[in-house]
Every structure is written in structure tokens, then in C-alpha cells.
């Protein structure tokens, strides 16, 4: 009982913030907790007068929370770093982001920046195909297109685009590239579209569904552990999910936020991000350990126009996908 009380009291004070005169900067982020752990000392060294507070959860939970904070009219967040580019596009359209052209981010490819600099890609997860080669003995797929082949009947899984942002991006890209017939084909192969990328990985490892569409960053650490997985970089273009960073317009200390923003594009911090198994948007950065060089990855062509269209069609895309998956 006493420990509980202490906990509660401590909690209360934690909520009020410690009174050491430091400015608080809130970062809502969905990147790996270990990456944050590595970033923290760097940030603290660069900003000794700032206390960084991380709300670290999945992109979806962060969106839910942020939406509620917008509705309540009091937003805590200074910097936002999640994986769903279309959400940023929507925020930018509503004028909720503070445009900033970071000199550090100058070399980020144009397609991965918002036209008005409302947000910039700070890391690039990519969606690839993975095969558990112990459980699937047929010929490996070479492309996303191949997955509609009947030899993958009952073998496929992917994340649920209705619940996972990265998987939504994939569906948006592939449906534009191949039309909805492509997903009819996947449906015919009885694809399981459920959960997030970790669920796909789980099905892959257990052999329940030995072929999956999944983020490379989920695969790399498992490969290092010796999982019997072959990564296929689809020849028709792996789908990048350029994950932005942005400053909220409501941030009480924009100047500080800009400096933090810059820091995220520094070589050092980018290296930390890459060590979290994601590609850096800076062309000169090294690829994650165990992954192909960036220039050797065939990619779905990403550009601002694509982001804009999908932002508008979001509901229709989800609805169509749901219909197809529900249909027999």
C-alpha cells in the first residue's frame, strides 16, 4: 500500500514536470525504442537546457492521441515522427504543421519532401517480400506481381491496411500500379491480411503463412538471429514508406524545435536510425546492416503527387480493400 502511494505521488509530480528550469520538448515518435535510447544521449549533449519527453508508441496510437489533443484544443506535441505520410499530408493541408526548410535536409530527394516543407522524410522503411524457405519449397517469387500465382494459394499474409499505416501505404501503391484486380488475385490465394508487420513475421516464422509482404526492418533482426527467411526485393519495386518529421504549428518553442529537427538529419543521428534497420533518406548514408544498398533496391516511384492523390482517396481505398477481402 505504501509503495502504491509513493507511486501515485511520484506520478502526480511527474505530471507536473520537474522544476529544474529546463524547457520541455515533446517528441511523439514511433521509431524503435532502442533507437530512441541511442538518440537520447546525443540530444541531451546537444541541448543541455532541454528536457526531451518521448511519447513512444505505434503510429496509430500516436495519431489517435494527437487527434484527441487537436479536438481538445491543447496539443502537447512539438515534433512528430511517425510512419504514415498521408497523415502528415492531411495535417499540412489543415495548416497544423509549421513549414521548415532544414539546411541539413537539403539532400533528401525532392519526392520525399512536402512541397511547402511542412514535413520531410527522416527515415525510410521499405515493404518487401519475405519467404520462410524451410516451409515454402516452391520457386521464390520475384515480384509483387508473382504473388497472385496459384502456387502461393494459402501461403500468403500481409498486415491489415485498415489498422496499420505502412500496410495502407503498400495497398495504396500496389492498387495504383496494378489496379484492384491484383488484390482480387491475392484474395483468391486466400491471403491473410491481419494485424501489423509483427503478425506477418510471426506467421512467417511459424510457417503458418510462409510467404509475406512485410517491412524489411522487421526481418533484419530476425535474420541476424538465424531465422530461415529469404528476403526478396521485388523487381517491380519495393514500396517505400517515407516516414516524415514535422513541427507542430502549436509548438511553444519553434526555434528550438527547428534545431532539434536539424539534428535529426545529422550524420550521427541518421546513423542511429539506420542502426534501427531502416534506410536513411540521405543518399550518402550507408544501408542498414544486412540490407542492400539503397541504389540497388528497385523502388515504387514515390512523389508528392502520389501522396496528394492517396490522401484524398484514403477512405475509398480502405473501403474497396475491405470489400474485396470480405467477398468470397
Amino acid at each position, binding site marked *: 500500500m505504501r509503495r502504491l502511494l509513493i507511486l501515485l505521488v511520484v506520478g502526480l509530480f511527474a505530471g507536473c514536470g520537474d522544476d529544474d528550469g529546463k524547457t520541455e520538448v515533446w517528441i511523439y515518435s514511433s521509431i524503435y525504442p532502442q533507437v530512441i535510447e541511442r538518440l537520447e544521449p546525443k540530444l541531451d549533449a546537444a541541448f543541455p537546457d532541454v528536457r526531451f519527453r518521448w511519447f513512444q508508441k505505434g503510429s496509430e496510437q500516436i495519431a489517435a492521441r494527437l487527434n484527441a489533443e487537436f479536438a481538445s484544443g491543447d496539443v502537447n506535441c512539438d515534433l512528430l515522427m511517425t510512419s504514415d505520410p498521408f497523415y502528415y499530408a492531411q495535417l499540412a493541408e489543415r495548416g497544423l504543421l509549421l513549414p521548415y526548410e532544414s539546411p541539413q535536409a537539403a539532400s533528401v530527394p525532392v519526392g520525399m519532401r512536402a512541397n511547402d516543407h511542412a514535413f520531410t522524410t527522416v527515415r525510410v522503411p521499405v515493404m518487401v517480400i519475405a519467404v520462410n524457405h524451410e516451409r515454402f519449397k516452391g520457386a521464390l517469387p520475384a515480384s509483387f506481381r508473382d504473388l497472385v500465382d496459384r502456387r502461393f494459394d494459402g501461403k500468403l499474409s500481409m498486415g491489415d491496411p*485498415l489498422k496499420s499505416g505502412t500496410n495502407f501505404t503498400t495497398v495504396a501503391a500496389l492498387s495504383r500500379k496494378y489496379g484492384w484486380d491484383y488484390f482480387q488475385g491475392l484474395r483468391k490465394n486466400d491471403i491473410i*491480411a491481419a494485424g501489423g508487420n509483427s503478425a506477418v513475421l510471426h506467421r512467417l516464422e511459424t510457417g503458418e503463412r510462409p510467404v509475406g509482404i512485410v517491412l524489411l526492418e522487421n526481418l533484419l533482426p530476425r535474420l541476424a538471429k538465424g531465422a530461415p527467411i529469404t528476403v526478396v526485393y521485388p523487381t517491380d519495386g519495393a514500396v517505400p514508406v517515407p516516414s516524415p518529421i514535422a513541427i507542430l504549428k502549436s509548438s511553444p518553442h519553434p526555434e528550438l524545435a527547428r534545431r532539434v529537427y536539424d539534428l535529426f538529419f545529422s550524420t550521427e543521428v541518421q546513423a542511429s536510425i539506420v542502426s534501427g534497420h531502416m534506410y536513411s533518406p540521405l543518399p550518402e548514408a550507408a544501408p542498414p546492416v544486412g540490407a542492400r544498398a539503397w541504389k540497388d533496391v528497385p523502388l515504387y516511384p514515390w512523389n508528392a503527387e502520389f501522396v496528394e492523390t492517396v490522401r484524398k482517396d484514403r477512405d475509398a481505398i480502405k473501403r474497396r480493400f475491405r470489400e474485396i477481402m470480405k467477398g468470397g
Partner: protein
Amino acid sequence: MSRLGFWVAAALVVIVGILPLARVAWEGAGDGWWDVVLDEESRSALVATLKLALATTALALLIGGAFAWLSMRTDLPGRRVLRTLLTVPYIVPPYISAVAWINLANPQVGLLNVLLGEGVLNVYSFGGLTWVLALSFYPYVLLTVRAALENSDPALEDAARMSGAGTWRVFRDVSLPLMRPALATSGGLVFMATASAYGAPALLGAPARIDVLSTRIYESLTSDLDGLRQASALATLLFGFALVPLLVRARRHAVVSGKASRPSVVRLGRARFPVVLGVWSFVLIAVVLPALAVCGTAFFRIAGDFSFDNLTSENFNVLQRREIRDALLTSVGLAVGAATVAVVLGGLVAFLAIKTRHRGRGLVFGLSAIPLATPGTVLAIGLILLWTRPIDLRNTVWIMLIAYVAKYVALAARAIGEGLGTIDDVLSDAARMSGAGGWLRLRTIWVPLVLPSIVAGWFLVFMPSFSELTMSLILAGPGLDTIGTRMWELQEYEGPTAASVLATVVLGLVITSNIVLRVVSRGRYGI
């Protein structure tokens, strides 16, 4: 005292559980409401939710009711061990047990299917989803009914026996009607909890192509900036689910009269052997196997590879991380706090509803259950909307405590209510006639008499608070991560084996403390 108590209880129930939901509903009010509600997709989700909730309730009542009676009122061998074993499915967090059932019964490589033949069992089906949910929720029934039975007079069953009734008839004609109020109440809890459940429907429903309201709500809340409107309209449909159980009314019988009786049991007689066989097969399949699946996963490097050299204990290294140990402490503190507050508040609400004639008592009792029928995401969003201005509780432990209490207080209220319902008022009258005032009667008569129900209610709130996920993922600010959020994090970022370690630890921790509690209290307390 009753007046003051009533207003305090009413105010707390409204502030803790109803205001945040009202705040969400307000966001969704307006022209768009009908569009969302009348939408074809919403309607099919509503129907699916209703069907799923009904089926799950029926199955949970069957399992929980049968086991409550068998383990409390019959000479079933091993019923003490059984009492603890049967609560294990409640200790395993629902999202973990859903994964365990995927491992056991997916059509391709599910372990049970490997034994029975490919595709015999399919967890991705309406039946599979019902089964997994019913296993998570039957403890509501088990514990509520059990606590109510603990008090009741075995002479009632003996009398039926002496009138020539066999085991089955004793059960049907006497025990079942006596259990009916507790069954109705706990069935209502299962119904509401199923309607708002997210984890299992998300994991199993998508491959089964079953869409329910809670998953639809999650989808709109977690992407689009305008999703709140839609989610809020859908959530108002779920509030209706909280009203359904109120329609089911069962007459309560006070079975603890002023005459004390000796505990005795119904002899199963000829039915003994088949019953024992049935009970232990159920325990094996529904309790032991999934628990093994969870714990087993924790010892493998790669999930699904059961070879000897894949065995490892290195997954347990995560326990050395400070943030994991912090999360354990946070969760223990929060769950103890939430369970205690819920028992006090829920007990008060139940007492007012069942033992007083105060106007509006039924309303408060009913209102206290609405958050249970609401998906955690919605409640969490409501709390953020409410507790931002003028009082900012975001990123404090308070908002999480409020969330847990709001969501689960109905479990305590209903369990305690059932206990109270079995106790004849004359016992309190006798204390009055000895001169005892309200608080003294509460302390010396009511509380000790309903203690079994209070313990059950406490545990019913403690467990889901301990491993709560949905709300914590939205509410837990820096430094306030819980076992649930850490388990989710491990699952997302490091794969299923690491997450199983935490589930195993939770299981071990709870079972051990339960055993210790039982031994120390000589069997009086514990589950």
C-alpha cells in the same frame, strides 16, 4: 449515510466513466451521425458484434456456470486445484491468448491440427473467435457465481436430494435457479466486454473476414484526422449494448438467512466418472495447452521451430532491462490501486442498488457498466478530451488509474452485488437492533459477509488492469509504460518470443502470489 453515499457514488461514476464518453459522443453529434450509423458497413458490423456477443455469452455461461457449481457444490475430486487452474485463462492477457490459439489452431500448422489432421480446427472462424473470447471471459461467470454460491445454504440442495431427485435434477431444479441471478449478471458482463473487445477480434476476425464495431472504431480513430467523428458515432451504438443486460432481470433469493448451516456437498454418484473426464479434458485443452503455448514460445529462439538446438533461455534477458522492471512496478501499483478503488466504488454502487431503496440507484448501477461496453480506444480518447483543460492529467498516472477504474468498476460492482443479493437483510437488522449505526454495520456485518465476492471482484479488476493494453497505448506517457505496453513493444519490435517472456512472467507471478496468499491465509483468501 445512504443519501450522502448515493450522491458520492453517483458523482464518481459520472465523473470517472460517463463524462469522458459523453465528451466523445459530443464530438460525433451532428448531421453526420445518421450517415455513419445507417451506413451499410456499420450495420453489418453491428449485426456481427451482436451475434458474437450473444454466442460468447452463451458459451461463457455454460463453461463458467458448470464449473462454478462443480467446484463449489459437488464432491468432484481435485476441486481445490481446479478452482485455481480455472482462473488461468483470465491471467493470460487476451491478446496473448489469441496468439496462443493461433499457434494451436490455425488451419495450416496449428499444433492441434498437426495432431488431428490439417484443417480440422480453424481458429479463424466465428466459432474460433467465440471460443477464444469465451475463454477470456468465462472467469467473470465463474468467479461471480462461485462467490454467490459460497454463502448459500446446502440444505436447499439436500432437501431436493431427500425429495428423490438425482444429481442432474438437483442441479436443474434447485442449484440452477439459485445461481440464476449471478448467471444473469455475469452473463451481462460477458456480453458487454465482448462487444467492446478489440484484441481477439482484430487478430482473428480479419482472417475470418468478420468485422465488428470495435475494430471499425479503432480503424477510424487511428488514421484520419476526422476519424473521431465517425468513431464516436459508432461508439454510441455500443453504449446501447450496456443497456441490453439491464433488460434481463432475475429474482434474487436471499439464501444466507439468520440460521447458520454446515457446508456439505452434492455427491455426483454415477455421474462422477464422465464428469471427471469431461472436466479434466477441458482443463487440458482450454487451460493447460494455451498456457504451455505461451510459456513454451518464451524458450525458443525462432517461433515455430521446435528443434532442440532452437531452445534458449536468452529471451529472458529482457527481464534485466530497467524499463521492463519499471513497467512491472508501474503495472502492479496501478492494478492494485485500480482494483482497490473499483472495489470500494463498485461496492458502494452495488450496496445502494441492492440494499437500499434510494431513487436513481438502478440508474447509477446501470451507468457504471457503460464504459465496459465501450472500446478502450474510445474511453482513452474521451479521457484525453476531458482531462486536458482546465485540469491536465495527461501523462500522469492518474489518468491511467481513472481509465482502469472506469473500464472495470462494473466487474467489481456486479460481483459484489451478487454476493449482497444472497444475504438476508435480517442479519443487518440484528446489528441495528444491537445499536450499530451505518458504518459500523458496513464494517462488521456486510463486508465480512460478502468478503468472498469482494475478493472475487478485486481479482476481476486487478487482472485486466495489470496487463491492460488498448488504453495504456494511448495514455501511457513517458516513464509510465506498463507491462501491457512493453509487451506490445516487444511483440512489435522484437518478435513474439520476447513478448511471451513477459506473459510467462505475469502468469508465474500471479499464480505464485495466489498460492502464497492461500497458504498464508489458510485457504480463506485467494482465487
